[in-house]
């Protein structure tokens, strides 16, 4: 017969716990060395964390110094260069901030650039047809959100990874862009720029960016949506078994990313009223590189931060501008710039990955 209380251990009080015969002096030495080692390890851990947090900021500072040094030494008009820098970084920061919601889930949207282009084209055509700035803004946002939602919904319906549907979407959007250009009978869509002069100001752009970033910070850090996205990125199986709807969360994330793309497209039209099928072609890659420069973990998860998009977006624009100044007039300059970006991208990913590996060891 089985004893239902087989392990009554209440009588086990008289047993000596430490049966070793260590000398008192040795024990004292050991305690002292343990305390020293613990203090040393604590200090090392603090330093590592501080460095991980500060590394993107240090990178940003280095790029900013390089931008100033290169710009002033080459006799560049710095106020113009700075304006270009802000124009470029605002669009990257806005789209990257929205895309953080996708990356945090460990997912990826390869069609961000194509989506921006199509949204900008539709917005331009709507403006040409109506002359309304607000309808243009609405068309940009609506087009981008719908495009994003189509990717996420297709993935949900067919049970596919979202990344797969964004690959398909990339092709579809390329075809749509070509078709939109053909509707004008030429090789580009030209938007009357006179309307935009009033709004193509740094103030407007910074206000749009600030409002959108504030919204994203709120949603990402202070609502359930942002939290479950990080949970999915950390471990999708656990997230599912904690009651998280993967499909609804993905749809919401793509909706917010679409909003960012729409705003980015709107600002793109304000800045560049002539759109061709190659406009915004490098935005997708710029976003990815910017995220990594900003310290975003490529696999997403709990270490995802909105500021990665902001710091990364500005860093990316600084790098682009610095190289543009350095390589201006040089044959093959654009190609060299691409290669430098690629090398830096790999270096940052390698550094981030090697730092992370050492922290997850079995005990």
């Amino acid at each position: 017969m089985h004893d239902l209380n087989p392990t009554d251990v209440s009588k086990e009080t008289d047993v000596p716990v430490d049966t070793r015969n260590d000398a008192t002096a040795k024990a004292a030495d050991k305690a002292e060395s343990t305390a020293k080692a613990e203090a040393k390890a604590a200090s090392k851990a603090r330093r590592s964390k501080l460095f991980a947090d500060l590394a993107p900021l240090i990178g940003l500072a280095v790029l900013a110094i390089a931008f100033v040094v290169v710009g002033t030494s080459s006799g560049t008009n710095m106020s113009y260069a700075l304006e270009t820098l802000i124009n470029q970084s605002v669009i990257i920061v806005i789209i990257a901030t929205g895309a953080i919601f996708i990356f945090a889930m460990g997912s990826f949207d390869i069609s961000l650039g194509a989506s921006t282009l199509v949204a900008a084209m539709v917005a331009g055509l709507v403006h040409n047809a109506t002359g309304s700035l607000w309808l243009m803004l609405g068309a940009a946002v609506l087009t981008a959100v719908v495009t994003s939602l189509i990717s996420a919904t297709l993935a949900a319906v067919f049970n596919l990874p979202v990344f797969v549907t964004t690959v398909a979407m990339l092709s579809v959007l390329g075809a749509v862009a070509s078709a939109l250009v053909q509707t004008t009978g030429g090789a580009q869509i030209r938007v009357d720029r006179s309307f935009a002069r009033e709004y193509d100001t740094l103030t407007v752009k910074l206000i749009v960016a600030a409002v959108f970033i504030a919204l994203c910070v709120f949603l990402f850090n202070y609502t359930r949506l942002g939290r479950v996205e990080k949970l999915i990125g950390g471990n999708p199986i656990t997230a599912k078994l904690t009651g998280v709807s993967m499909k609804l969360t993905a749809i919401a994330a793509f909706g917010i990313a679409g909003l960012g793309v729409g705003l980015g497209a709107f600002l793109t039209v304000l800045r560049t009223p002539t759109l061709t099928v190659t406009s915004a072609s490098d935005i997708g890659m710029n976003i990815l590189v910017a995220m990594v420069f900003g310290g975003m973990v490529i696999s997403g998860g709990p270490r995802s931060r909105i500021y990665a998009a902001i710091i990364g977006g500005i860093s990316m624009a600084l790098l682009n501008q610095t190289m543009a100044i350095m390589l201006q007039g040089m044959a093959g300059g654009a190609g060299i710039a691409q290669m430098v970006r690629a090398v830096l991208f790999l270096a940052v990913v390698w550094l981030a990955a090697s730092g992370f590996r050492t922290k997850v060891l079995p005990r």
Partner: protein
Amino acid sequence: MTNDVVLTVTDMSKSFGVVRALKNVDFELRDGEIHGLIGENGSGKSTLTSIIAGSQPADSGTMIFEGGPWAPATVNESLANGIGMVVQESGTVPGITVAENLFLGETGQFSRLGIVNRRAMYAKAAAALEAIGVEGVNPAIPAGACDFQTRKLVELARVMMYEPKVVVIDETTTALAQDGRDLLYKAMDAHKTRGAVVFISHDLDEIMSVCDRLTVLRDGDIICTFDKEDFDEGAIRAAMIGRSMEGHYYREDNKATSNDEVWLSATGLNLEDKLKDVSIEVRSGEIIGIGGLSHCGMHELGKALFGAAPLESGEVVSRGVKITNERRAVRHSLGYVSKDRDTESLSLAASIRDNIASAGLRLIGKGRGGLITKGAENAYVQEPIDTLEIKAPGAGTIVSTLSGGNKQKVVFGKWIACGTEVLILDCPTRGVDVGVKQAMYRLMTQLKDEGKAMVLISEEMTELMGMSDRLLIMKDGRVVREFERNADLNEMEIIECMI
């Protein structure tokens, strides 16, 4: 066992961040012995053996193996030179075949002109599995398609194939049902003629019956080593925890009790050949135990009750609500603790705070328009951290740095904090030490007294008998017998139903 020493560890230390996992330890392994390592979670057992087996370096200290200095840089280097290890968590790669796992990095031996002779590889893999007594596993299927037990046995076969002098078995038996454990014991016994075994387990009965010597670790220190003739359960347990344990281990009562209301019912569940027409009811204030041999379907039943298994037919209802998926289950106050804690119950890279809060985000934001503030979140998670006595520097501690027992407390905390009414616990004490186990059992008893309903799936018969109001035995996907808690419950009768 001879008195020849095959491995000596001297003055070894290892830290992970601020945590000192090993503190100047000395350890000696003799030829022909099975040497047990026992201690609470976080005592340093896995750290010591993982350094010996080359999966990480020590911060300081030396090792001598078979008369020469020993400092393997990798697990493969260690295995090739005489020390192999079967790790605590899953050590197989799920996306490749069983055979490829067995010959990981070594498939070149079957390759000619770059083409791998799969037939030869599968034949050798089958032979390697048979050598440790594993039969009926197809080496051509992906490891991910095998259950946890089979994957652990594949790891064992891989290590044994190299005929190492020393084999380390780290907390593996909790993943095994009785048949798998028997295979492991047999393989360990056979290995004594070739070398030595280091065996880590939290199961005191098991470790006392299997081992020739036993070393107790606590908080990174080696406390003492017992010879077989000095094995004493009380002394070992006291050495492990450094204090006396008071009170009962399992429930003190011998009577099945529950309230009248049925809180969870399953009717006619069918799932491939894993569940066949299974029907059960769980009442408020009741603990239903589910037991059986491996492949009996009990783990699949746990998932099905939580809406996480693609049922062919049948339905699960909790207080009038049909449970069709995990989301619905959590919304209607069901919680699920998986057997595979690291893979299915935790986000390892996230903090204790994030993990505990994950199931209760709606509650934290309730009354604040969904706003989740740091203050509200900290208040929400602090109670389970205090109640469950989770040992960590703070709520922001990353879960991957915690010991197995503390990780499991975080999983429990996640469900308790959000007020889960029906808990499905699949091997909840797997890989946790005796102190944490006792805390878990006390918690379960407390939850039962509060009127919660629990389904306890376990491979440990004493646990099932010690905690369940009713015990359902499963075999080949069916519930074959039900036992009600009483003082005369017969263990042999239950085991006969399983076989």
